[in-house]
Each structure stands twice: as C-alpha cells, then as structure tokens.
C-alpha cells in the first residue's frame, strides 16, 4: 500500500490486499461505524476500533471507505480520533485526525487498485 504524498485520503493498493483502518479516540470514548464499497463493516477489535477489509477489483478501480466518529456533547473541544491506515502487503500511514463536530463526523478514504 502507498499513500499519495499530497493527499492522505488517497491510497494505492494491490488487488486482494487487505486494508486495515484503526480509529483511536483521544479524550473521548471510541464510538465508530464504518462502511466499505456500500457495505457495513464489522469491528475487528475495540478501542482502538479496527476495521479490516479485502480490496478486490480490477486495476484502476477506486473503492471508498467511509467512517463515522461519534462524539458526546460533554467531550472537550480538543477530543479527536486518530486514523491509522495499513495494508497487508506493507505500508502504514497516518491520515488526518477527526476532530469533534457533534454529533458525528464522517470521513472518506479512497483506495485505488494498482
């Protein structure tokens, strides 16, 4: 897996590579949801919440990972989630953190199959 040097939401993966997205909450409880390519993803483990999915398709295809991070009104303004993206064939990257904007903040990551 590689991350676009100018765009940390864009990744290039090998077909059938397994992608893992780890969401770690800071100063707030870890309450997340995720979807990939129009399907819900189940959490592999909690706190940090880890989602894992195999990316399959043809070369050039782009797949979308979407996440929703939930905050509570009583979380401090600096509460956030850090995002770690890694591939089963190597590569681990940090994406932009998700900061509190209640009640939930959604984000997208894009995976292009090499």
């Amino acid at each position, binding site marked *: 897996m590689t991350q676009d040097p100018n765009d940390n939401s864009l990744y290039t993966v090998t077909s059938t590579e397994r992608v893992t997205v780890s969401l770690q909450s800071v100063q707030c409880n870890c309450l997340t949801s995720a979807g990939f*390519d129009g*399907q*819900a993803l189940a959490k592999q483990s909690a706190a*940090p919440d880890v989602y894992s999915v195999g990316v399959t398709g043809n070369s050039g295809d782009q797949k979308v990972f979407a996440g*929703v991070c*939930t905050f509570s009104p009583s979380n401090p303004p600096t509460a956030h989630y850090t995002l770690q993206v890694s591939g089963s064939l190597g590569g681990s990257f940090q*994406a932009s*953190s998700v900061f509190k904007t*209640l009640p939930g903040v959604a984000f997208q990551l*894009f995976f292009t199959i090499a």
Partner: protein
Amino acid sequence: MFNLRGRPSCLAAAMLMVGINSIAQNPAAPKTPAKTSGAAPGCSNLNSKALETDPDLVNAVAAVVAQIIGNYDSTRPSHPPAIRQFWGPFNAAVLGEMQPKCLSADALGIAVQNAVKAQAVTAQTNKQVTAPPAQGQGTSLVQKVGIPQLLALAVENGAITDKVSGTTMTLSTSPYAFLTAFGAVSDTQANYNASAWATHTGISATFNLSNSSDPLASVSRKQVSQWQAKATFRDTSIRSKSVATLYANSNLKKVADAVAIDLSNSWFVTVRTDLDIPADNAYQKAWAANLETDVADAQRTGDSAKSDVIATALLKILDADQDYQTGLKNSYAQISSEASLSALVKKLHSDRADFNEKETEFEKKIADLAKGWNGDFAFSEQFPATVTSTSASGASASTTTATIPAYFQAELDVTCEPYSYSDNTGKPCPLRSTGTFTFNASAMFYPNPVASLNEKTFRGAHAALEGQWTLGPGFLRTKPENDKSNMTLSLSANYERLEENKDQPKKRPDLAIGNIKLVIPISAGVALPVSFTAASAGEQNKEKYVRGNFGITFDLDKLEALLKANR
C-alpha cells in the same frame, strides 16, 4: 447554484456555524423559534428556508472547519492541513439539498445551546451551596512559595480541576488526569480502559478562600478545611466501557452504520473528482492569502468567532472557484438524471437527520448509565472550625475559643438515583420513581488523642440516611422559559457517636438529628428552603432542640444560565 458571490447578506449565514453546530450537539433542545430574516435581498432565486429547517449543510461546513482547525500544525504554518477526506461528506450535504440555496439563518443555534445549558443547570437539585468549616493550622513559608503558580499550571493543563463555591475552593484530581495532562500517558480510550485504578480514584482538597479574586492564592496548609482520597465503585463517566457497550447496541450505531454505508457508495469516486478535489484545491490556494492567520488564531485561542470567519471564507472560496462550480453543476445534473443517485442523496440526507435524533436518545441513555446504585470509599482528614463560646458572669463576660483537633475519617457512601429515561418506575432504587437514596457511614480517629480532653484514638462513628424526592415544578404557574427548577422534599436522619463526650458533664455521646426540608423554587434562580430539625443533643452540649429554618437562596449559576438562554 451554490453561489454566494456579491451577496453579503447571504454570507451572514456562514456566521452561524457555531450556532448550527450546537443544534447538532444538543438535538434534544427545544425548537426555539428562529429569528429568521427571510430571504435576503439578492437571494431571491435561492431557497433560504431549506437551510433554516435543515442544518445538515451548515453542520457539514462546520465539520470541515473543525477539521481544518484541529489538524492545523503550528510548527508547519505554511502547510495547510490535509482535509480532503472531509470534503466528501460536505459535498454530500450540499448535493443532498437537491436544490441550490442561499445560506441564510440566524443565531438560533446559540439560543438553543444556552437553553439546554440552562435546563441542565436549573434542574440540579443536589448542588451544595454551603462550605465546610475550617480551622487555622500552622504552615511554613517554604510550602507556600510557588504553589499557586504550580497549581495554575496544573489547572491549565487539566491535571487539576478547581471549583469555587461560596467561600471555599475545592481542588480535585485523579491519577489518570495527572498522567494524561502532563503527557506521561496519551489520553486514548485504550489507555483509559487499561487504567481503571487511576480513573476510579481521586483526591481533593478544600480550602477556605482568603482572596476570592485569586482563589489559587488561598492554597496553603493553613487554609485547608479538609482533604480526601476517594475510590468509586463504578465508573459512571462518558469514557466508561459501558458507554461503548451501550453504543454498540444502540439505534445511534445503526444510523451511523447507515451513514457510513451511504458515504462508501462508489458514486463518491465521481463526487471526489467533480467536487472534493476542486474544493480542496481552492482551499489550499486561499491558504496563504487569508485563511492561515484565522486558522492559527482559532486553534490557539479556541475562539468560535474565528470558526465563523473561516467558514465564511471557505464558502466565498467555493463560490468563486470555477472548477467547483462546474463540478457542482455536473453533479446536480447527474442526480437529476439518475434515480438511484437521487435516492442515495435523499437517503443520506434522511440518515443524517435521523442520526441527530438518535443521538438525543443515546445521550439520555448515557445519563441513565450514571444513575442506579453506586458508592465510594473515602478517607479524609477534617480540620473542623474553631468553636467560640461566650459566657457572662455578673458584669463581666468572657470568650473562650476551643480548638477542635483534626481527625481522620473513613467513610462509605452509597447512593441510588432511579433511571429516568430507560425506566420510569423507580428502578433500581427503593424510593419510587423520583426518589434518590443516599447512605453514609463513617468512623473517625484522632491521630494524636489528647487525654486531658478525654480523647481516644477512636473518636466515634457516624451514619446518615437521606431520601430526596422531586415534586415537580412547584407552585409557580409561570416559569421563565428553560427553567427546569423543581420543588424537592428531603428527609434525613443522622446519628453520631462521640466517644470523647462519654461521661462528660453537659455532653452526650450519642447525637441523633432528624431533618425535613422542602425547597420551593419561587423565581429564576431563587428558591425558598423550609426545614425543621430535631436533635437529641448538640455536639458541645446535651440540650435537645427543635429548630425551624426558612430563607431565600439565590443561585447565581442558574440565574446566569437562564439569562443567557432567554436573552
């Protein structure tokens, strides 16, 4: 057309980012009527009403602004934070409106935010307004020097919480707060879960204030009225594991899943090309021109007004960017021509609205989690007040001051507050649906008993029981909007055994006190407490007494909250 160019009155809408965001924070808030200005001149072709009834889009702008500010790296000021992963949800909100609009709204959000705060503050019935007594103790200058500054640093870092109430200030902290505030441990949920001992324990110290304008300056050994170490039996904070379990099985999670599924639809690859990338490019181009200073200021100061400025600037940027406007036009055309896309954006729009609603439900369930049975074990050292008594003999009168020595106290507290949202039958408590039950038991010890005062190591024991019921709004026919003050009735019984009073003239070792108290709210922040107390004896004499008290209390916190809310 998402076009704000040359329409300053429309741009005023962007000034409401914080306000609209607060709607999202408090979806349970009452629907305060918006002070709408109607379609502003120059916006006649646009649909301002759509936004006023649906804050989805403005929430989305606020989310983008929050990510820009939050991800800003002050050590690399020339680099705008990468936020491309957040433009998609923003653009989904833009497209979800299904029609162009003018961003016109008002300060509704701030009004709602204050309203909710006022409701929370005025609904409190357990606020302690009296300060514990204290007694002067010796100290050294060496201990005092530098302490206020160190404390100020700790308070600023969040390691210590300070709470000023009347003439006292309580500083409290927990091992976890200290570890995380000074960076020894990152305050992640994983670390929180692994640090149960550090989150279930805490220490506090209460000081008599000598200078209310600078409370921390009163922090000295001499001013301490008590210190306490406490361990709670159950974590009732929003960080507890039970909140995560509740979320996993909640309707909120289901809706969040639905939003995530919607946003992971492959159509967003096209949205990314048409809108996300142009939006991010436009934003990056504008960074050096005007955004950087405001973003840096917003992160440094936490000033929400700066967020409004940034939001306004972003909308202007997108309004002026030809690539973005072209992409918007293409996307609208796509949605109009493809039923599946139209259905998708409608569903996303609906799911996001549903999310706000379910979030309200979830917060109420979280509030219930903190209720039920709980307790703590506390160990404290008390520094009682100096007792002054005056006696008259013939023409002369003499005043004697008795110093009650400090003593240690080991205390068990048990409380039960019934669930109010998930169950209205009073479960799991014994006192019906509105009754809160509290029990305290303690044993007291003198570290240095003085034989001449009949003191022994074991000072005595104490037990107290209280039931408090909420009786509704009281006799007030009309209350200020958002005033949730309630009339409360409490019954309490208190028994204390003081070994040093045993076999002492004019003193009784067994002290029993019963109290009934009714607090009637009579106006905003003003209440009339009426109480009757019967006692078997006083601590310093053996005379029985029955006493009635009434008065008027002013709660400035409640008053301030209501004034803000109803402004």
